[in-house]
C-alpha cells in the first residue's frame, strides 16, 4: 500500500515548533561560555530570591484555585438550581470577566481599586481620609485579580456538569431517605467532580503562568514569570534559561500530579432522564435575597468593564483630583483611529492574531485528520504535541522561542526570526494550538469516518471532500476554537512583551506605553477596543 508519511511530517514539524525550543532552553540552562557548566544552576539554587519566586508562584496558584472555587462553585449551584427574577440575564453576565484580556482586566482593576482609583476616591471623600485606605499591591492584589478572572472556569464547568446530572439520581437518593445535604455531598458533588477537577487544573495552570497581574501589581512580590523577564532584561541570559527551565518543570510536574489525583475519567453519567428542574423560590424573602445577591454580584463583576469605558472617555489631563471625571468625549477613540502611530498597534494585533489563528486552525485540522481518521501510529504523540503548549506558561514559551530563533543555524532548524514580523504570529500560533485543537480534535472524533469514504466513492478528491463535507460538519468546532484563539492572540501580553519589536508592537504593549506616559484615557480606549473584539469573537464562537 502506498502510504504518504504525512503523519510523520506533521509530527516532526510540531516537535520542532513546540518541543524543540523548550529542549534548547533546558540545554542552555546547563551551559555557560560555550561549554557544559553548572554555574548558572548553582547561581539559581544559591539565590534565596529565586526560591522566593518559585514559592510565590506555587502558593499564589493554589490560593487562586481555592478562591476561584469558593466563588465559582456556589454561584454555579445558585444559577443552575434556583429560579429568581433576572436569573437568565444574570447567568450570562456572570461569565463576563472572560471577555477581558488579562492585561485589560488588570488596568481596569487599577483604575477601579488602585490608589487613585474610583473606589478609593469615594472612600477617601466619604470618610474624610487623607489617603487611600489600601494600596493595590503585592499578593493580595494579584489574588484579587485572579479570583475575579478565574472563577469563571469553576462557574462554567460546574454549571455544565450540573446540567448533566440526571434528575433520577437525586430522586433515587431522596427515595432512599437521603436529605438534601446528604444528596448534595454523596451524589451530586461526586458526579460533577470531573468538571470541578478540570476547572481546578485549568485555574492552577493559568495562575501559574499569569504574568500581567504580578507585572503591574507585584511590587516587591516575586513570582517566576516576572522574575524571568527581569533577569532577561538585566542581560543575565544564562540565569534566565535556568529560571525558565525551573518554571517549565514546575508546570509539568503540577500537571502530572493534578492529572493523577483526578483519578482517570470519572464516572460516566447516563443521560437518559431529564435534567433536574430548577427550584422556583417561592418565599418573597428568598426571592428578594437571591435577586439582591445575584444583582449585587453582577454589578461587582461589571464594575471593571464600566470603569474601563468611563476612563476611556476622559480627555487627557482633565481628571486630576475630582471625584469623577469632569469632561467626557470620544476624543481618545478618534486619536486611535486618526494617528497612524496609534492605529498601528491595532492593525498589528489584528493581522498577527488572524494569521496565527488561521495557521493554528490549519495545523489542528491536519492533526485531526491524522489522529481521528487515519489512525496513524503517531496519533498519541501528535495529540501530546498539540496540547503541550498549554502546559507551558507563556513566559516560558516566549523565552524558548526567543532563544531558538535568535540564531541562524538552518541545519539545526534555527533561523533568525526574532526582530522580524514573523516571530509574534508564530508565537501566537504555537500558544493557541491547544485552544484550537481542544475543539477541532474532538470534532473530528465525532465525524463518521464513512462520510469521507462516501465522498470518495462518489468521486470526490481530498480537497473537495474537505471543503464540502469535513469543513461544513466541523463548522461549530472550527468557529469556537478559532474565535477563542483569535481573542486570546489579540489580547496577548505575556509572549508579546518578550518578543515584540517596535514595528510589530501589539495593542497590549501600547497600553503599557500609554500607562507609563500617564495617558490613561488612551490606555483605557485600547482596553475597550480589545474588550469589544474579545466579546465579538466569543459571541461568534459560541453561536450555534
Amino acid at each position, binding site marked *: *500500500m*502506498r502510504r504518504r508519511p504525512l503523519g510523520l511530517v506533521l509530527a516532526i514539524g510540531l516537535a520542532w515548533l513546540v518541543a524543540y525550543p523548550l529542549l534548547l532552553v533546558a540545554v542552555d540552562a546547563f551551559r555557560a561560555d560555550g561549554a557544559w557548566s553548572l554555574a548558572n544552576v548553582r547561581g539559581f539554587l544559591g539565590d534565596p530570591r529565586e526560591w522566593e519566586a518559585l514559592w510565590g508562584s506555587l502558593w499564589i496558584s493554589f490560593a487562586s484555585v481555592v478562591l476561584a472555587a469558593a466563588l465559582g462553585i456556589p454561584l454555579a449551584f445558585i444559577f443552575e438550581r434556583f429560579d429568581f427574577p433576572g436569573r437568565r440575564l444574570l447567568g450570562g453576565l456572570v461569565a463576563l470577566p472572560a471577555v477581558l484580556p488579562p492585561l485589560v482586566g488588570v488596568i481596569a482593576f487599577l483604575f477601579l481599586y488602585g490608589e487613585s482609583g474610583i473606589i478609593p476616591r469615594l472612600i477617601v471623600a466619604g470618610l474624610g481620609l487623607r489617603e487611600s485606605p489600601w494600596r493595590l499591591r503585592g499578593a493580595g492584589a494579584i489574588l484579587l485579580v485572579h479570583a475575579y478572572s478565574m472563577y469563571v472556569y469553576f462557574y462554567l464547568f460546574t454549571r455544565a456538569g450540573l446540567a448533566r446530572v440526571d434528575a433520577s439520581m437525586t430522586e433515587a437518593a431522596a427515595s432512599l431517605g437521603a436529605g438534601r445535604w446528604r444528596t448534595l455531598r454523596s451524589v451530586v458533588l461526586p458526579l460533577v467532580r470531573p468538571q470541578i477537577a478540570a476547572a481546578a487544573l485549568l485555574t492552577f495552570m493559568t495562575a501559574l503562568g499569569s504574568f500581567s497581574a504580578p507585572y503591574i501589581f507585584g511590587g516587591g512580590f516575586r513570582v517566576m514569570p516576572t522574575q524571568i523577564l527581569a533577569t532577561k532584561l538585566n542581560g543575565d541570559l544564562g540565569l534566565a534559561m535556568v529560571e525558565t527551565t525551573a518554571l517549565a518543570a514546575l508546570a509539568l510536574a503540577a500537571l502530572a500530579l493534578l492529572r493523577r489525583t483526578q483519578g482517570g475519567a470519572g464516572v460516566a453519567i447516563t443521560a437518559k432522564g431529564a435534567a433536574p428542574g430548577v427550584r422556583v423560590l417561592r418565599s418573597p424573602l428568598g426571592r428578594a435575597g437571591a435577586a439582591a445577591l445575584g444583582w449585587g454580584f453582577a454589578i461587582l463583576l461589571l464594575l471593571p468593564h464600566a470603569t474601563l469605558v468611563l476612563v476611556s472617555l476622559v480627555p487627557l489631563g482633565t481628571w486630576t483630583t475630582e471625584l469623577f471625571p469632569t469632561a467626557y468625549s470620544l476624543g481618545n477613540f478618534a486619536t486611535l483611529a486618526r494617528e497612524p502611530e496609534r492605529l498601528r498597534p491595532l492593525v498589528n494585533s489584528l493581522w498577527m492574531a488572524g494569521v496565527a489563528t488561521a495557521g493554528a486552525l490549519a495545523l489542528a485540522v491536519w492533526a485531526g485528520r491524522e489522529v481521528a481518521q487515519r489512525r496513524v501510529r503517531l496519533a498519541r504523540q501528535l495529540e501530546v504535541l498539540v496540547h503541550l503548549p498549554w502546559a507551558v506558561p507563556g513566559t516560558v514559551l516566549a523565552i524558548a522561542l526567543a532563544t531558538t530563533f535568535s540564531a541562524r543555524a538552518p541545519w539545526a532548524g534555527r533561523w533568525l526570526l526574532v526582530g522580524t514580523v514573523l516571530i509574534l504570529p508564530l508565537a501566537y500560533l504555537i500558544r493557541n494550538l491547544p485552544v484550537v485543537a481542544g475543539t477541532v480534535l474532538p470534532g473530528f472524533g465525532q465525524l*463518521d469516518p*464513512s*462520510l469521507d*469514504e*462516501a*465522498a*470518495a*466513492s*462518489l*468521486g*470526490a*478528491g481530498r480537497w473537495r471532500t474537505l471543503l*464540502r*463535507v469535513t469543513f*461544513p*460538519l466541523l463548522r461549530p468546532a472550527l468557529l469556537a476554537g478559532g474565535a477563542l484563539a483569535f481573542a486570546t492572540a489579540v489580547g496577548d501580553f505575556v509572549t508579546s512583551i518578550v518578543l515584540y519589536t517596535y514595528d510589530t508592537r501589539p495593542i497590549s504593549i501600547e497600553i503599557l506605553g500609554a500607562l507609563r506616559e500617564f495617558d490613561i484615557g488612551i490606555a483605557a480606549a485600547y482596553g475597550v477596543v480589545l474588550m469589544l473584539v474579545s466579546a465579538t469573537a466569543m459571541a461568534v464562537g459560541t453561536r450555534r
Partner: protein
Amino acid sequence: MTDQPFLELREVSKRFPGHVAVQDLSLAVPRGQLLALLGPSGSGKTTTLRLLAGFERPDHGAVIVGGVDVTALPAAARRIGMVFQHYALFPHLTVGENVAFGIPRGPGRSERVRELLGLVDLAGYEQRRIDALSGGQQQRVALARALGPDPRLLLLDEPLSNLDPTLRERTRRELRAALEAVGITTVLVTHEQDEAFALGDVVAVLRDGRLEQIGSAPDLYERPVTHFVASFVGRAATVPGVLVGEDRVRVAEGVDWPVRVPKAVARGSAVRVVVRPEAMRLVGEGGIRGAVRARRYLGGRALFSVDTAVGTLEVEAAADAVTVGTEVRVTALRAHAFPSEE
C-alpha cells in the same frame, strides 16, 4: 458462468495488525449479476467490500473491473458506488444535494437527481433534510446517491440491517426492483441468509477470510461442500456418525440414514452428519429414541426439539403431531456427511 466476468478478485489477501482479514480470495461476477457475500461477523466480507471500493489496498492479489486492473486506483477514481451500513448521508446537505454530490456539474444535473429520486420512490423529496427522513427513506436516498455518478459497480454493506424487521421485507423487494431496473453489477454483504438468498443471483459463503463455497441458493442449501456451509446455511443439526456404505451413514446402533458425501471419505471412518428439520420424520419404529423438549409453532407446521442420545435434533412436522414431553422416534430421509476434521 460462460460470460467473461465483469468483476474479478484474484487471490486477494489483506492482513491487519494481529489478524488476517482476507486470505487468497478469488471471486468472479458476470456483468449485471448480484453477488451476495454471506458469512458470520469476522469472516472478511466487509473487508472484501472495502477492498473493492478502494478504501483498503490488498497486500497481495488484484481487483479487476471490466478487464482493467484497478488495484492501485484510489476510491475516488474507481467509479464504484457504495451504500454504507449506516448510510453515511451528509447531514448538512438536503436530500437533493446528497444525491447530486457525485453527479458532475452541468445542465442535466437536476434532471438526473429527479430521475434517481423517482427510481427510489422519493420523487419531490429534494428539499427535505436528512434527519427528517425515516430509516427506510434514508436507505433509499443512499442508494440514489450511490447511483448518481453512474457507477460501473455497486456495493451494498448490510443494506437492510438498520431497518425494522417489518420494513425489511418490503425494502428488500423495492431494492431488488430498483437494481433490476438499473441492471448494475452489484456486490452485497450480509450475515443474514434470507437476505443473501432473496437478493443474490450468486451467493459466496466466507469464513475466516476464505471462500467456502460459491453458487446459487439451491446449490448452497442442497449441495453444501463443507460442513461449515451445511450448518451455517439454513437450520441444521450435526450428529456424529460412521460411514457404512457409499451413501449410508450409521448414527446409532441399527439406525442408518441415506447421505450425500461431497468429499471423498473412506468407508468406516467417522463423519459429521448434518440433517435439516424438513428432512426429519417422526416414526413409529426404528430411528432414534428421544423426548420432545419444546415446540416452536410456525402456523400449521411446527419445529419440535427432540433430545436424543446423539444430541438435540429438530423435526419439522404437523403442528399437532406430538406434544411436549412425549417419547418419540425420529429418523432422517436424507443428510449430508463431512469428514470429522476439516
